[in-house]
């Protein structure tokens, strides 16, 4: 227990993700209940995409009868490759789920070659 009290580094929950892709884009859904727009920080630095979600809900006061939820801020770090257009990342937050849309660079999309 003392370890948890004295640990200096901030602790995070890694949120659950759902990632799908097609030729044109990669869609990432990240579940971060308790995070509102203001608490969200999305950064791209080189090949690293970092999503920080700071919870805005307050710790309730009283006697805890049951405690299953984890009240920690969220952090998720992705490594993105060269095929992702760094300027073409858009995000949308609804019902505690962040949806990221990562566009694939035109040059990285497969080209169909017509046979003459």
């Amino acid at each position, binding site marked *: *227990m003392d*370890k*948890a009290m004295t640990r200096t580094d901030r602790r*995070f*929950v*890694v*949120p*659950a*993700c*759902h*990632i*799908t*892709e*097609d*030729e044109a884009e*990669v*869609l990432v*859904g990240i*579940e*971060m*209940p*308790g*995070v*509102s727009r203001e608490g969200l920080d999305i950064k791209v630095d080189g090949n690293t995409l970092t999503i920080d979600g700071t919870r*805005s*809900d307050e710790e*309730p*006061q*009283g*006697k*805890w*009868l*049951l*405690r*299953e*939820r*984890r009240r920690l801020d969220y952090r998720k770090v992705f490594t993105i490759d060269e095929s992702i257009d760094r300027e073409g990342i858009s995000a949308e937050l609804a*019902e*505690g*789920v962040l949806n990221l849309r990562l566009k694939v660079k035109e040059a990285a999309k497969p080209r169909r070659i017509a046979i003459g």
Partner: protein
Amino acid sequence: MDQSRRERSNSIDLWNAIDELREELEHSFGDVAGYGFAARGAAVPGVAGLLDWQTGPSIDIVEGDEEILVLADVPGVRKQDLDLSVTGNVLALKGEKRQEEAPKGRKTLRKETWAGSFSRTINLPNTINPDKVEALLKDGILRVRIAKREEARKKSVQISVK
């Protein structure tokens, strides 16, 4: 619902210790720290069933002086897909978490999230007033406030010392 175990005040430290241990274990297994929707089972792909004991959203219950607060993590669940009812001192939370079908040609690279219907019944102390319930859904968290009956509220009376 195993509320009684957590009510014993001398067992709180033990629960913290178990929580810590569980978290470390989950970290060593994979990416997802156990929280909310079935993430515990999904942390280790292919072994759902072994660790997948989650049957609904994670819940907190906090008893204040005047009300009981129930908090549930329901990310991705819409208001119209939630069904909440109180019968006696039992709160029933039902709902459905929808996930849109992936269109053809989309490849799923990773799926740690969970979709489907869920149901949880929560035993509340019998001091509650089932006529005074308020529920609010915000940022994927459902907050249900249930007022306590007048006679069950903690009252402090000032006593003057003569």
